[in-house]
């Protein structure tokens, strides 16, 4: 088995002039980088890390925006054998003090020795550091070594073994930043191999177009690491440019004959609703062979909207595909076969809600349309278990468990979280299981034959396909971004006038937007309507500035409204039900 630095070196030798990444910035000409450019740029950072005395295996946090420095500093860390992790950049929406607190919380668990950022941002980063913490170097982008011919023999990353941790992925918020998913070279390469087969990736014909940020697995793995390692040209725009001008994605697909794109569900609605015809003149989407819906629950209505809007520009219906993925499996777990459209399973609503079974529709009764997430990758096995970890039959809803040769090594410096998520499950007898991949018995890879990752997602299996129906862990997914409700509840509790600990946050699906919207209910002292409105306003401001999440509904209530239970999870679902009832009645 090889390692990531070895693949870079091969590309440098074999295809130096091939275009690897085309960086797009609104209002500027596109910037193509060949493999020679990419690896020479990365080498400048590797030399800088060496100059600073950074040791292989140390964690380097990258706080940079879309652009060349982010690309070079990341691959430079790989060449040096350090472990890079990309942190979101501060935006207008987030209060700087909250950003510093998040950074400090990441530092306290992940213990990086190094942070890379811009000179303009140095003060912000230093503001998060405290005496005695792990950070010894703040490297600025204007202090990078000059470009030279890479000397691969002297680069430390070539001493890495396939089992070494190569990258860390975090999700957002206080809770997410404290759980870095540690992935080995072996896991990343096994995922590339299996996923490449599932989507029939071809270096000669495919072009990936992406606006996704790199601090999330979909953008990071499918639209950054995979294309660069497998020599698939990548056209990459900034998420900030895309959100202001979603048509740029379609123009880029047309211009570069893009074949593959990954999008969270909301993006289908966003593109369908907000792009005007004048921005689509001459756009040809016929090269797009797969637009893969991933990282949020898939809604078939979103695919329909997208198809209606863009079929006139050559979009094929068969391009609309689905995938189920998670950072803990590097990325994809399942993928819809690209030669048809994802299977739709219409089920009886009542049986699903009350008995947790996906059964055929009954005449005249309400139904739910479930979209298949596809079949497991060739290296993945899936089973569905109940609360006591017993296997469930086909069409019974339970927690999805995953086993593969590309699982996480651990949550970095969090043995407690690792232990809670990876469980030994007995071998199956006669129950449905997807996938045939044999677990490594010899200890190669990170998991033993009985170890399964419990995903915290609910779903069911039918006819070899996986349907994901909800979440066990309390997580709100807003615009593709994972948010822990407990983080939002804690923030709302900080607002003056709110009873500490008497707040509830949950997500509510919005059909128009194609994603969840956040609702917060908070108990307050006052029953004076104008004071309650002022508190609601203060909650909105504080939570948004502290989490970068916009709130849809904030409801301030008296001390009798909130249903209290012993667990946050049940409190959230009970209060959500009450809230929806009131909303429907009004």
């Amino acid at each position, binding site marked *: 088995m090889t390692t990531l630095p070895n693949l870079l070196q091969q590309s440098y030798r074999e295809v130096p002039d091939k275009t690897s990444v085309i960086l797009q910035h*609104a*209002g500027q000409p596109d910037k193509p980088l060949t493999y020679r450019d990419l690896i020479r740029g990365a080498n400048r950072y590797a030399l800088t890390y060496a100059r600073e005395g950074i040791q292989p295996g140390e964690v380097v946090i990258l706080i940079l925006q879309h652009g060349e420095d982010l690309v070079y500093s990341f691959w430079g860390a790989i060449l040096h054998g350090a472990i890079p992790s990309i942190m979101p950049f501060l*935006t*207008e*929406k*987030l209060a700087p003090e909250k950003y510093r607190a998040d950074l400090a919380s990441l530092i306290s668990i992940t213990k990086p020795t190094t942070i890379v950022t811009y000179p303009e941002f140095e003060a912000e980063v230093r503001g998060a550091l405290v005496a005695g913490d792990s950070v010894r170097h703040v490297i600025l982008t204007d202090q990078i070594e000059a470009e030279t011919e890479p000397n691969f023999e002297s680069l430390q990353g070539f001493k890495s073994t396939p089992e070494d941790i190569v990258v860390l992925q975090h999700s957002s918020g206080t809770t997410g930043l404290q759980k870095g998913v540690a992935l080995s070279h072996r896991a990343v390469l096994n995922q590339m191999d299996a996923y490449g087969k599932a989507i029939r990736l071809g270096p000669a014909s495919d072009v990936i177009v992406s606006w996704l940020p790199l601090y999330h697995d979909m953008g990071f793995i499918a639209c950054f690491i995979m294309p660069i390692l497998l020599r698939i040209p990548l056209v990459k725009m900034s998420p*900030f*440019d895309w*959100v*202001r*001008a*979603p048509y*740029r994605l379609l123009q880029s697909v047309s211009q570069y004959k893009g074949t593959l794109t990954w999008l969270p569900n909301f993006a289908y609605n*966003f593109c369908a609703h*907000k792009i*005007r015809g004048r921005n689509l003149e001459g756009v040809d989407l016929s090269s797009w062979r797969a637009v893969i819906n991933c990282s949020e629950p898939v809604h078939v209505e979103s695919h329909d909207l997208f198809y209606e809007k863009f079929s006139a520009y050559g979009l094929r219906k068969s391009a609309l595909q689905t995938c189920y993925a998670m950072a803990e499996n590097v990325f994809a777990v399942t993928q819809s076969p690209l030669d048809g459209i994802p299977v739709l399973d219409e089920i009886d609503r009542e049986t699903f809600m009350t008995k947790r079974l996906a059964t055929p529709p009954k005449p005249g009764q309400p139904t739910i349309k479930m979209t298949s997430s596809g079949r497991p990758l060739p290296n993945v096995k899936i089973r569905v278990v109940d609360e006591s970890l017993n296997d469930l039959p086909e069409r019974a809803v339970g927690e999805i468990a995953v086993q593969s040769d590309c699982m996480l090594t651990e949550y970095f410096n969090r043995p407690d979280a690792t232990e809670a998520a990876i469980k030994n499950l007995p071998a199956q007898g006669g129950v449905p299981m997807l996938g045939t991949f044999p677990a490594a018995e010899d200890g190669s890879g990170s998991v033993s034959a009985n170890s399964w990752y419990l995903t915290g997602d609910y779903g069911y299996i039918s006819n070899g396909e996986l349907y994901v129906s909800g979440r066990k862990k309390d997580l709100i997914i807003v*615009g593709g971004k994972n948010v822990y409700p407990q983080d939002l509840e804690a923030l709302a509790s900080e607002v003056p006038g709110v009873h500490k600990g008497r707040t509830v946050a949950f997500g509510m699906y919005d059909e128009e937007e194609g994603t969840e919207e956040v609702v917060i209910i908070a108990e307050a002292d006052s029953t004076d309507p104008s004071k309650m*409105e002022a508190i609601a*306003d203060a909650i909105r401001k504080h939570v*948004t*500035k502290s989490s*970068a999440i*916009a709130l*849809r*509904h904030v409801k301030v209530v008296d001390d009798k409204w909130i249903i209290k239970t012993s667990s946050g999870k049940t409190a959230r679902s009970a209060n959500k039900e009450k809230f929806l009832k009131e909303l429907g009645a009004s």
Partner: protein
Amino acid sequence: MSTETINALAKFIAEKILKQPNKVIAADEALISSGLIDSFSLMDLALFVEDTFGVRIEDTELNADTFDNLDQLAALISSRK
């Protein structure tokens, strides 16, 4: 004219973007730098301005340097009419 423009913008932002129809937005209140208007909603504002006033705001201009409050946005609209 400017008051009318400001009122129309304030109404749109309160009702359609913030979904708080009773919210009063002061003409000098920061909209973008304060995070009040989410980046996902900047497009909606630009489309509303185009449809209502016939003035186009380019996507590269959708940031606090171009306008950050209702006064500035109204001035931008009247300068382009």
